[in-house]
Every structure is written in structure tokens, then in C-alpha cells.
């Protein structure tokens, strides 16, 4: 317990705590804000998750890390839901540049940019 507290203090004190995962990615609060969004879907949880995605992209750039799989695409999808189509396309492009195997999937998202408009 003491060690844990010490480690946390040390971590905050030293680098503001940008933890890098074993795979070499920075994930921020990803699991937490996505879990909140799944549990209580709404404007607040959506905005919090969007903030997490943006934080991951910014910090990854700062730390010279590859943005984790799916993050640009997920942000693009949220932007597309908010009718910010140009910004959405830019995010999809960023995802495809980093991960070419996402191309077919992203094409599918581009074909149907108006999500949920059918109902």
C-alpha cells in the first residue's frame, strides 16, 4: 500500500503521469469513458469519451507514439454523428494512413456518413 501511494506521488511529481502501455501506446482514460458511455449513453458521456479520444491523439503525438488502433476512426465516427463531415473524413484518413488494414471498414463508414438517420 505504502509503495503504491509512493509510486503514485512519484509519478504525478515527475511526468504528469503519461503512462505508456506494454504495446507502446498511450490509452488515457479510454476504458473508463467508454464504459461510462456504454452504461449511460448520453451527451455528457459522449462528450467525455470524445475528450478522451482527443487526449490520446494529442499525447501520442507529444510522446512520439503511434496513435492506438481505432482511435482516429472512433473520433471520426463521433464527428460524423455531429455532422462534422470534413473533420470526420480527415480522421478516417489518419486511421487508414496508420493502419492500412482498416481501409475496407473505413470505406463502409464513408459510404454511409449519416449514421442513424434512417430512423
Amino acid at each position: 500500500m505504502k509503495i503504491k501511494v509512493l509510486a503514485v506521488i512519484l509519478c504525478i511529481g515527475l511526468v504528469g503521469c503519461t503512462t505508456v502501455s506494454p504495446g507502446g501506446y498511450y490509452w488515457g482514460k479510454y476504458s473508463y469513458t467508454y464504459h461510462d458511455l456504454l452504461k449511460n449513453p448520453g451527451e455528457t458521456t459522449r462528450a467525455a469519451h470524445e475528450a478522451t479520444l482527443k487526449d490520446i491523439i494529442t499525447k501520442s503525438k507529444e510522446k512520439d507514439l503511434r496513435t492506438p488502433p481505432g482511435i482516429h476512426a472512433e473520433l471520426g465516427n463521433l464527428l460524423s454523428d455531429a455532422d462534422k463531415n470534413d473533420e470526420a473524413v480527415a480522421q478516417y484518413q489518419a486511421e487508414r494512413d496508420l493502419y492500412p488494414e482498416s481501409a475496407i471498414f473505413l470505406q463502409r463508414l464513408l459510404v454511409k456518413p449519416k449514421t442513424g438517420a434512417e430512423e
Partner: protein
Amino acid sequence: MKLISTIALVFLISACAEVETKGQAFPKMYSETDKPVSIVVVPAINNSTAADAANLVNSTLTIPFADNGYYVLPVSIVSDIFRREGLIEGSQITGIPLSMFKTSFGADSVLYITINKWDTNYIVLAANVTVGMSYVLRSTTDSAVLWSYDQEIVVDTSGDSTGFLLADIIKTAVTTAMTDYIPIARQVNATAVATMPYGKYHPLNNTDAGAKVVLKKSKEKALAPAG
């Protein structure tokens, strides 16, 4: 003497648990033609009594599989697509032919997850969660099983003792009510992923075929029909 006990120990381990190398256990993960790069995760099938278990698992899955070197298609977008098609539960999606995930998502493999147990136990001075999960990764080219794992693990959630009985009882009750289950879900996923060969984006890709893993019949269990 030491040698004999070592031999005896090795014999004992091999008798009760299946120790294989990753290459022996999952040969297709080392074949140039069969090894997947991308994974579609089907929303977890929750057979446990905990309502939030599926959300906990779905929100913590991407990280370990991506960290292991795979391209995980964004779970949130994929599940939105399923939802729009009227497929909400993972069990409704298991019937979809695997080749569909290749043609419409461009994915090499599909990961199916079943939560068999998520039981919170509170025993006055201690608290823990027993989690049973199975993972099966299948190829979208020929439906073959590429990797699988089945586990039941107990995670302690009671924290450290304060040294005072009454304080401990109160502390256990409080921590059980406020337990942060995300690190627990992460720990469960990490244990499973540790047996999985590294993928394209991991620096040790294609170098871990000789790594030993203890599978304890978990492969067979993962493939057994649920029920």
C-alpha cells in the same frame, strides 16, 4: 537430490497442466497465410448474473489485443453497426457466416467472447470476484480456430488489512460497494492475452513461437458449446 526433485516437479507439472509452446498450441498464428492482422470483436455474450459484466468486458478488450500487436476494429463503431441491423446481443451475431466479416469489414479474424461467470463474493473480512470467460478467435477465410482460451480466475478486491478487526470489516464493506471493476476486467483479459502469439504491430512479432504457455485444457473448454 536437487536434480531428482526438479525432475519430479517437472513431471508433476506436466501431468496436471498442459505445457506447450505457443507455436505448438496455435500453429496457424505463425503461418504466413493464416496469421491475422485485424480482429473484429463481437460484443460479449453474458451468461453471468452480473448485468454490467458485458459493458466492463467490452470496454476493456481493445487495449490488450491492440497491445499484443493486432489491429482491433473500433468496438464502439462495430457494435453500433450491429445495433442498427437489429443485432444487440453477441448471441444473435454468432450465427452470421464468418466470411461476411471479411467482405463487409475487411477483417481477417473474429473474436467471440463468452462471460460464463462474474460472481462477487463478500465474506466479512475479504471480498473477491470470480470471473469465468472464454475467448475464441476464428479466421474469416476458412473459419478455422486461430487461438482460444478459457479461464476462471479469482481476483481479490478487499485491499489491504488495517490491522484492526472492526476497521477491516467496515473497509471491506465500503470497498465492495465502491470497487472499481475496470482493473479487474483488464486483469482477466490480460491473463488470456498472455497466451496469444504477438501480432504485426508488436516488436516481437514472429519471435515467440518457442514461448511456453500453460493451457490447462483451456483450449478444449473454450470450444465446448456453452451451457
